């Protein structure tokens, strides 16, 4: 049986885009701590951006983009620089994936979050500030806006002339397309791990 080292694959994706026009969106905002107590990996989507999506009574806040009817069913999140800063909680990408997002587009991401996305079959896609601005313009028209992302060719485009390439590390790209189990891959290096342990004898704390 597979452990959770196994990653769902993502080759191409076409979906509706929802804008979240804020810089420095932190993981406390993505998934507030009162929801971190669950001991499962699933079911976090309902709590995504909770304090922006719902008022204290639990009613949806109309002015928040995810609640607007034209963005219902969006699977691509368009946002600003340094997305995912703060805590390392993987609950953040779990919530994002569970809500239904497969791609996040931003000018930059915080390191740990960026890495956590790939572990969960989410593509954090980096575009320049100008191109992100251009996409914000397109999503703001009130008409549902759709993008297609092709991971193999590293291209994101719409059917009205927007097309841009993006960069991801070759190994991450391969993992995303193939959906590999990276724990299994490391376990295959047993010989090297054991050799290191013999040679360097990491200090045992509790025998």
């Amino acid at each position, binding site marked *: *049986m*597979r*452990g*959770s*080292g196994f990653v769902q694959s993502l080759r191409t994706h076409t979906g509706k885009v929802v804008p979240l*026009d*804020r*810089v*420095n969106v*932190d993981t*406390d*905002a993505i998934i*507030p*701590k*009162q929801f*971190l*107590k669950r*001991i*499962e*990996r699933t079911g976090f989507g309902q709590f995504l951006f909770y*304090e922006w999506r719902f008022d204290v009574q639990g009613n949806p806040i109309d002015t928040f983009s995810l609640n607007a009817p034209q963005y219902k069913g969006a699977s691509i999140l368009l946002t600003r*620089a*340094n997305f995912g*800063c*703060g*805590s*390392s*909680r*993987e*609950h953040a*990408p779990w919530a994002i994936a569970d809500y239904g997002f497969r791609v996040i587009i931003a000018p*930059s991401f*915080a*390191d*740990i979050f960026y*890495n*956590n996305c790939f*572990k*969960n079959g989410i593509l954090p896609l980096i575009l320049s500030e100008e191109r992100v601005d251009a996409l914000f313009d397109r999503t703001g028209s009130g008409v549902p806006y759709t993008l297609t992302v092709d991971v193999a060719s590293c291209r994101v485009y719409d059917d009205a002339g927007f097309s841009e390439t993006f960069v991801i*590390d*070759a*190994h991450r790209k391969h993992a995303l397309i193939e959906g590999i189990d*990276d*724990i299994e*891959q*490391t*376990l295959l*290096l047993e010989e*090297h*791990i054991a*050799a*290191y*342990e013999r040679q*360097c004898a*990491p*200090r*045992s*704390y*509790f*025998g």
Partner: protein
Amino acid sequence: MKTMFEKIWDRHVIWSEEGKPSILYIDVHLVHEVTSPQAFDGLRMAGRRVRRPDLTVATMDHNVPTKDRFVVVDEISQQQMDALTRNAQEFGIRLYDLHAVEQGVVHVMGPEIGLTHPGHTIVCGDSHTSTHGAFGALAFGIGTSEVEHVLATQCLPQHKPKTMEVRCVGTLPVGCTAKDLILHIIAAHGTDFATGYVIEYTGSAIRALSMEQRMTVCNMSIEAGARAGMIAPDETTFAYLRGRPHVPQGEAFDEAIARWKQLVTDEGAQYDACVVIDVGAVCPQVTWGTSPGMGTSITGVVPDPDQFATANERKAARDALAYMGLHPGTKMTDIEIDRVFIGSCTNGRIEDLRAAAHIVRGHRVSPRVHAMVVPGSGLVKRQAEAEGLDRIFVDAGFEWRDAGCSMCLAMNPDVLAPGERCASTSNRNFEGRQGRGGRTHLVSPEMAAAAAIRGRFTDVRAWNAPMHANHA
């Protein structure tokens, strides 16, 4: 010629292949209750074991009540702690639970019991793992999938980060602390200036810091976006480590020192980037916004959003002021507060409590303020009580609590009410961090203590001057 980071990195790479992340051996894996249950479940699902339970250490900190600690009213919190207890038992991992005097915030407890050594690779499912870099270790936070990876293999695939030197020259002015230094750096350079980098803090101002202060600086490296923060080990480091449990003893310790001395960055080694900080210009800091970089000096005012350079920054500042209930031009010293939290992995160590107690001694907490001190660990608490610090706080009207993360992230019952304004020694002032609608201002322990007494932010540099000087 290598940097300290490169020496540690190279020594721990057990496998590397063109175009793939390197596989890094992990010397110490710290585990807490919030980011581990799904990792242990993953192991069970795949029928895997923990490869090196003897290099894995667990504690409970995020959820634990700091008052009546055995009465956990929140059932889900209790379940999470129970899950860690069961997982530790099943997989043979040493757990410091609520019954252990060592229990505490994982980044306070680890160094205290000697788990953090120079040259180590240390990971934990927690971004403030960067704290341990203060000893010249390579320490960084990881996600839960990676926690599972390390449990199963004691290794971690890692893309090699770039290196940045943050050279701190000059002398920290009297009344300014390591907290003010790191807040100053982040306010000046932004919360993402070190994204993709491991920072090494160097320079005379860093050498002059105690271990506790160095941990405060490295702790908040993540608030600068860095993967990790590091400080080369020196006599201060060795003096701190000597005699602690889990460090080599006697002759073996001297041998270890000789090895650790080899770790320092070679003369002439190149960093990928360098930032120079004039430490003499640091003032006591107070944040005014909802990102750790939104800070200013205690002598400053709440900024005008229109004065920021870019549209994104202007919008962020406007959103922040609306959330914080602040107006441009308000003097920081005119901002009244309701709560004070002294604690966390940033400032919950014994020196922090001593510094705060020094300010508090002989004063009373303002009637408008509810103040509490939450020691970072059981050992910090015990030491503070042995020194009588608890009496100073309690006599002044502070609550004196048990160890835990507490109001740093408010997963336990220590939560701000909507609209409450808090002077906090923690590391994050994000919206809702200390409770929905709660307003957090990050400060040093001294500044938090002074704010508790006055009911508003106060320049600690004038604390011992005559009263009229404080209100000038």
